């Protein structure tokens, strides 16, 4: 399914990551996945949280640059070849992956793969058509 991910800009300086995560903690927001891409000067923190709208509001209020991004989330078997199956599906379709990360899913024995592509809708359709429509909103958000 297509889910809402939060992307946060962080200057590459001591304490910046901590400050952002603290804001979420004090607002009672649960982080279910987290990935950090960085350069020498700055990084982009990507988060899946249980209450994206509240998290965005709280971070924004504190002067942090944050944006909601739509990404594809897919559950896969936590076995050798699990990730490969999904990537093989996407290859040769003209969809390119900007970035991806994975985390352990709520369902035992499953992992969650988060994909950011240049065409979220097309990727979602492809995944659905191939039986990868297997994540429920409850797995991600607190509903």
């Amino acid at each position, binding site marked *: 399914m297509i889910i809402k*991910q939060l*992307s946060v*800009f*962080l*200057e590459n*300086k001591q304490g*910046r990551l901590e400050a952002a995560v603290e804001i979420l903690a004090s607002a009672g927001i649960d982080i279910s996945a987290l990935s950090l*891409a*960085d*350069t020498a*000067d*700055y990084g*982009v923190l*990507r988060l899946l949280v249980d209450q994206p709208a509240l998290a965005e509001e709280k971070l924004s209020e504190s*002067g*942090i*640059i944050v*944006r909601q*991004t739509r990404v594809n989330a897919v559950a896969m078997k936590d076995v050798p070849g699990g990730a490969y199956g999904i990537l093989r599906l996407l290859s040769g379709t003209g969809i390119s992956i*900007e*970035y991806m990360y994975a985390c352990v899913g709520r369902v035992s024995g499953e992992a969650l793969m988060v994909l*950011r592509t240049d065409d979220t809708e097309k990727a979602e359709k492809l995944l659905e058509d191939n039986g990868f429509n297997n994540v429920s909103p409850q797995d991600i958000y607190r509903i």
Partner: protein
Amino acid sequence: MNSASLEYTDRESLKAIQDERLINTVKRSYERVECFRLRMQEIGLIPDDIHGTEDLAKLPFSYKKDLRDYYPYGLFAEPMENVARVHASSGTTGKRIVVGYTKNDLEMWADCIARMMREVGVTEKDFVQVSFGYGLFTGGFGVHAGAEKIGATVIPISSGNTANQIQTMIDFGATVLCSTPSYAMYLAEEIERLGLKDQLKLRIGIFGAEPWSEEMRGKIERTLGIKAYDIYGLSEVMGPGVAGECRFQNGMHVWEDNFIPEIIDPDTGDVLPLGATGELVFTSLTKEAFPVIRYRTRDICSLIPEKCPCGRTHIRMHKPQGRSDDMLIIRGVNVFPSQIEEVLLKVSGKEITPNYQIILDRVNNTDTFDINVEMSDAFFADDIKSIEKTEKTITEGLRSTLGIGAKVHLVNPKSIVRSEGKAKRVIDNRQGKI
């Protein structure tokens, strides 16, 4: 009267020459330059009200902004067929400013530089390596013409490529080096590091176009085994050579038969007593294509009233110690924060300029130029590739606007310290570092 004798002419005769030339310059400018005429009319002044240098303070000021408003040739007092050359430098915004010279102007310019070169011992036997940039910048061509006038052999190598500069200096037997002081310092250290000092024939250095300290002069002189002299000028008034040091290395003589300096209070515009520190203002007396009347240089300095032991009667000025505007000189290039704002505004595509801070330092005798830009919604994307692209667009925009490279760093919003709501725009750590 030849120009050499004018350097030593008594003050009274000099004033008579200045009076006549000032009256003529005011009259010509009034008739031919709209900007000046309008300013005169605004304060109800006509050329006949000006009888000599004692009336100078009655005249309206002119500003760098005028060159932008009348870009490119609107302030010229000669038709373009009489303009032999143009030069250009950076304006306060993206648009540069243009200045022009008739054949006589170029001759006068060369004469001013030749006077200084002769005084510090340059002769027709010398080999003058001109390591100022050639091009729209006035440095290269200006100094070149002065050295040619003396009959010296000119090596027009222009700036850059240090290894080639040193090799040329050795192979061609350069005896005089003309460059920015920081580049001279850099060359000196390289020469020392490579152990090539013994192969040099250098004996004189003429350095200008950026601020430098006495400490730096001492170091360049010791390292290269030369005497180093300071030269001053700005494109709007002419270029290098408006003033230059004599062998006593104690202040630069302003060639008063061509230029009148004044020191004013930059806030009130009042002329300050001789010897006081304030903003330097120039009036040209002989320029034809682009005469300037009470041009505000924004350089802060003082004039030296005492007679110079060299015998010249022309007044000396101290090296400028700062600016009355926010112009920065980085690697010899004039940079205005407003130029940076313009680039950031263009990239962000919004009406509000992103907050930024300029950080200057000096490492290995070269200015470092970093700009911190606060991240904003306009710049943010959730993938690094897009952010890097934005960074690159800013860097390239700055390079094409300023003519020099800056390192751009995207920083957290509100991380640039503000005092009373205003961010400190410039942190200059170069002071005292040579």
